[in-house]
């Protein structure tokens, strides 16, 4: 058993213990995650790498409370979230977790401001306050002049900035980024990564970045490598 311990002494944000995920197709069962143990401390940036089929997406889905482990425990911020109901999972996603996707996943027919305000809407924040917060967030990602633009009127890098602002809207503890620079050219990819890390430092966020890009992975405090559902390597960044 290979375990990866968080360096910080304070309680971890993410604490996975003996996590298994098995998909059953009729008679046959496929074990996608096998005895994963992982702790990620507050304010830590972790990169998650591995070939396709290694279980990265499944692990990310479980971390994001979109999926449940078959066995094992997942404590998020000290609280067991491995067996939550769908509405409870949604609540956790809304208040504790921010998602950033490779393909941005903005609502195509809504403006930048409306996209950023969406999580706030689901959190019950009223319109005026919502727009105020969304403007502030767009300012922080450098899009203070693009409030009313539709995603189709923005560049890829700008779309990803809107997505970052949206992910931060409800003040999450954990940010999950799935190939955040994968759909961007190297320059705007680098810019988005810098923005992400700057905001991470400013707010003390915990970030998990799934990536194929070693340059991106090296920017993390720690690299976690997955192979066939096992965590095979935990490498800390050379300080």
């Amino acid at each position, binding site marked *: 058993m290979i375990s990866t311990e968080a360096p910080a002494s304070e309680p971890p944000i993410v604490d996975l213990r003996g996590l298994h995920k098995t998909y059953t197709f009729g008679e046959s069962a496929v074990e996608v995650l096998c005895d994963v143990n992982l702790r990620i401390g507050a304010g830590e940036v972790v990169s998650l790498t591995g070939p396709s089929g290694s279980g990265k997406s499944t692990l990310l889905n479980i971390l994001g409370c979109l*999926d449940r482990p078959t066995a094992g425990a997942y404590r998020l911020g000290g609280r067991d979230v491995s067996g939550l109901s769908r509405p409870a999972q*949604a*609540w956790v996603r*809304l208040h504790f977790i*921010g998602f950033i996707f490779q393909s941005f996943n903005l609502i195509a027919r809504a403006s930048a401001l409306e996209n950023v305000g*969406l999580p706030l809407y*689901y959190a019950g924040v*009223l*319109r005026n306050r919502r727009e105020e917060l969304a403007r502030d967030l767009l300012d922080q990602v450098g899009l203070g002049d693009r409030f009313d633009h539709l995603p189709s009127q923005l560049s890829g890098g700008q779309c990803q900035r809107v997505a970052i602002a949206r992910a931060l809207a409800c003040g999450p503890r954990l940010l999950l980024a799935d190939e955040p620079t994968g759909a961007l050219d190297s320059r705007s990819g680098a810019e988005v990564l810098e923005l992400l890390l700057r905001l991470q430092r400013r707010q003390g966020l915990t970030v998990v970045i799934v990536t194929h890009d070693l340059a991106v992975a090296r920017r993390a405090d720690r690299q976690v490598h997955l192979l066939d559902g096992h965590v095979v390597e935990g490498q800390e960044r050379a300080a």
Partner: protein
Amino acid sequence: MKKIRFEEVSAAAQILVRYPGRSALTMLGLAIGVAAFIAMVSFGEGARRSVIAQFEMLGTNLLVVSPFSGQREALNKAVQPLTDSDVQSLRREATTLRDVIPVARSDQDVSHDGLHHWLRITGTLPGYPDLHSWTLVGGGMFDLTDVAQRAKVCVLGATPARILFGDADPLGQTVTVGGVFPCRVVGLLATKGYSAGGDDLDDLIIIPVTTFDAYWGSAAGYSRLELEPLRPSLMPAAEREASEILARLHRIDDGDDDFKVTSPIEVIRAVERTSSILSDLLRGIAAVSLLVGGIGIMNIQLVSVAERTREIGVRAAIGASPTQILSQFLWEALVLTVVGAAAGVGLGLTIASITAEVMQWPRVISGPGIAGGVAFALGVGIVFGFLPARRAAAMDPIEALRHE
């Protein structure tokens, strides 16, 4: 909480802006359904009122006795005419009648100054117009003195007045009746228009019944006797009493009367029954079209949910609960329903107005009809909006996010 509800509605209303074409198509079916419903209710009610109004013009507090052979001729039994002695006996004996008015009729030629017109001559008593709630627009009805003297006077209906005199004033002029006797015009009847059966009610000339007798005789008896009950509520009693008196006078002992007593009110009731069946039928058809509109909403919402699968996944991923997603799509269906229904109300009222204009019906705006149509539409919207909304809410966010 209230404010959040309002924001849910306004968020759902954005569908109108974001998908205008699809929204319009979705609403079209329902709008047509609501419009059909309102127009149908209005048609039914307008037609009904128009038919009833026409029957009411004939008089409602009225019983009509007419000769009736029934099976008597076939059985070789005599059919006695309605005579003056019937009139006198009814007047003398009946306790439920205010008046008995004999009516003799004959189709004759009437002419004035070389112009001829063929019409129905009515020989009767001065009470006739009142009994039929018929007013005079000029001159007056002849009186009982005219009747006693067999005076050659007449009251003209609007149709012969127009044909024989055009724009000139017929009062005091003379018309030749039946080619045999001159008759002075003393009164002009108001216009009644056409009966439900299409007869021109104004195509008549009224003369004293005695004058009629003098020229065409009364051997065949009166065409009918018109009985006015003391009160409308006495109608059934009056009908019974008149039948008994006449049966005795005509020596009918086998119940096979040689006359029949009818009342326009019975006709009106029959018409009301028929037309309310018709109204129900129209409403039923309109309800079906509303239902079809609702199914249209469901289909397009299902397509919409399928097309927006990825969006639903994104919303779920960023923290929308299944309930919030359900409510979003349900509100969208409701917004489409409400806007569609409102458009349908406008369209329905327009159709109803145009039809009323064309058909010359009273223009009926039925509050319950509109409310019923809209309420039914809302019900349909909720019921048929629910299935697509539930499908959206039940989606697995991971699957939905993977959807292209």
